């Protein structure tokens, strides 16, 4: 169900688009493409990303 949902920014009433977003953790900065509102730029991080790849990268950076 999660994958099939399409999200829009409720504030700007815009469909989300895939766009680069800057991430930072423990002094490291990098960018990654996520779904974002084309107008206000707010980004949506799905659970799979937060608890999957992001958690992995967090752990790697913590060990650095």
């Amino acid at each position, binding site marked *: 169900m999660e994958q099939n*949902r399409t999200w829009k920014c409720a504030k700007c009433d815009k469909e989300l688009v895939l766009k*680069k*977003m*800057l991430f930072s*953790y*423990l002094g490291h900065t990098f960018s990654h493409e996520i779904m974002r509102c084309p107008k206000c730029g*707010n980004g949506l*991080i799905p659970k799979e990303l937060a608890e999957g790849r*992001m958690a992995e990268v*967090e752990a790697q950076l913590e060990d650095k």
Partner: protein
Amino acid sequence: MKLEESKVFVNDCFSGEPASCSYACPFGLDIRFFMERVRKGRWIPAYKMFRDTVIFPVIVSRLCPQPCRNNCQRPSIGDEPLAVRDLEYACTLYALNRRPENFVIPPKTQRIAIIGAGPAGLSCALNLAQKNFHVILFEKETGWGGELRAHPDFKLFDEEIALQFSSTRVDFEFNREIGSLDELTGFDAIYVATGKNGATFDLMESRDSDLMNTSRPGVFMGGALCGVPLMESIAQGSLLARIMEAYFQTGRAARPDSDRVITDRVHFLNHSGEEKKALVTMASPDCYTEGEAKAEASRCFLCDCKICWENCEMIKWFRKMPPRLGVEVYTDSQAGSSLSKRSLIRETYSCNICGKCKSVCPVGVDIGALMQFSREDRLRTNKNIPAFHDFWIRQFDFHTSEAFFVSPSKEMKSCEYLFFPGCQLGAAEPDHVLKSYAYLQETLNAGIMVGCCGAPAYWAGDKKRLSGNVERIRSIWDSMDRPTFIFACAYCENIFRLLMPEIKQESLYTVMAKDDTIVPARLFEAAAMFDPCTARDDLSMQEGIRILAGRANVAIEELDNPNRCCGYGGHMRLANPGLYEEITKHRKDASDKPYIVYCANCREVFRQKGKECAHILDMVYEIDQGKCAPTLKSQKENALEVKKKLMKRLIGDDFIPEKHEWDSIRLIISQELQDELDRKLIIEDDLKEAIWLAERTGERFLSDDGVFQCSMVKSVLTYWVQYKELATGEYEIQSAYIHRMKFNREG
């Protein structure tokens, strides 16, 4: 941080060092390493290390008086010591390739004269020749061997000497007696090894027994001439070669640091659980067969201390022994750039800091103290990981502010006793605090302080929070005429003993044990006693609990290895969830009986893991048996309820908790999701706040099937909530999760 500062915690650890037998060996042979190879029949590597250490394996394996056997640990269970020399000899027979290795080393310019081709002179000559020094050996007899020439096995030794010299160049001048050292010109060093009663060239009195040098620069003296026994004479050869090297480089004879044998580190371990094994006898009179030798070597205990390893899942998990941890704490503190990887972050924050290692270590090495030192250093230098401890630091802040309460007994200004139940007891079960306090108030007219000892700040390495809390408690204690604190939690006791030793202590359970009108309920017919790690040194508390449980007529089983941390200690759960699961599973499975616990954290951990357990206060007040662990939300509510009731009872005031604009929001959360949120340590209040914020600002996402999603950054975490609006102010939560990274929408 300096290296010495972190190493001081582990300096006494002797794990990985040579075993006791090696300390007795004139050569310092690593006998454990040797036995490990021999038991597997790995003759060549065994021979190689033996040869590299003793220079003349055949001579040593025939003539060594084996002082190692006096230090063998097998006799501690009534067996004979290992037949070390016979195994060494077997090794010289079964190693197929005994040819000395020939290393390509650039030739040195120095020339060394050695007077005397006995064992001492030969050993030194060979050691120097292997380093490619130019060595000339003068011998008054017709051949080499010195005192060995008279030995019945000299033919064997003669072959051995020839073999060992076969791939190096040494010029032998036999039939050449040196009458005066002035005959030897053009040499950078001279070694006088003329054997028993040999020529001393009037230098004996000036000889330094440690460095073997004499008053004449560059002239050294050793071996039987100086009364050194045979094995030691051979061993001296390799030491002297290194002393001479130092002399050539610096002009001063010096002993390499690594050669200093620290004999007081010889440690004998406890082998009481080991199987007895008799000495393997030889079928043939001369030597062991290969099979016999392997069997004999298998009797070796391979003595090495691993007691902490055996008692600690953390050390096992990371496979690092204390000496390495000590060095890595230092190297980590020096790693600064984003390129250098730190090696000990996870370890530092994975420790329960439970003191088990220290309690089992023969020399009291405390890895928890090392990790605590590292945590404090990391926080001070901003090399900590805030997300590992943020949840508990927030709890600490809550328990020392909003939930904090202190009062003497009703209508009193000071008190003789002050009950300090700790932050977790009331959060888990309000009655544990309220009823115990009612009892203490009635019997001792005690006051009460509901707060936190500071353990979460301590474990986070947060000295600032910790000292602030200590100062506050101390000044209240002072203002109440210095009452004795009565604790319900052994960890609070430990923290107080460490940071506020001037405050007198008493345990709630020893107070109750003295009162035989207290008869706890028999919640179990039989149970195992799970003593917390923190009560390890408090024998009177342990005894008090047993008296109380005995009154309940519960058959008590004692655990084989008690006082191990349930997993809660050190707040390592977020730093290493996998290890946390392993530790909690081990503890849960230590007995199939239900547990009696007397630490609120043990109770919480075991209930979360589905282990039937009762706190001793559950038994005293006959409450809550078998119920699930309280949710995070109810823990907070419980803590506030305790404060509210105490305030009413003691001061007559109504407690008004802090108000938030999101308090009126109602969330519908399924039990399954609630369990998941508790596992992830996500608090309901934070979800309410995130939704309230999203609804107010409008910053949220909407799916085509009417689900909202919003995020909120709080402290070091970003919270995400998916929800459906059921009615105004009422939301059904579909999912919630957190991450530690921050994102920047301007980027």
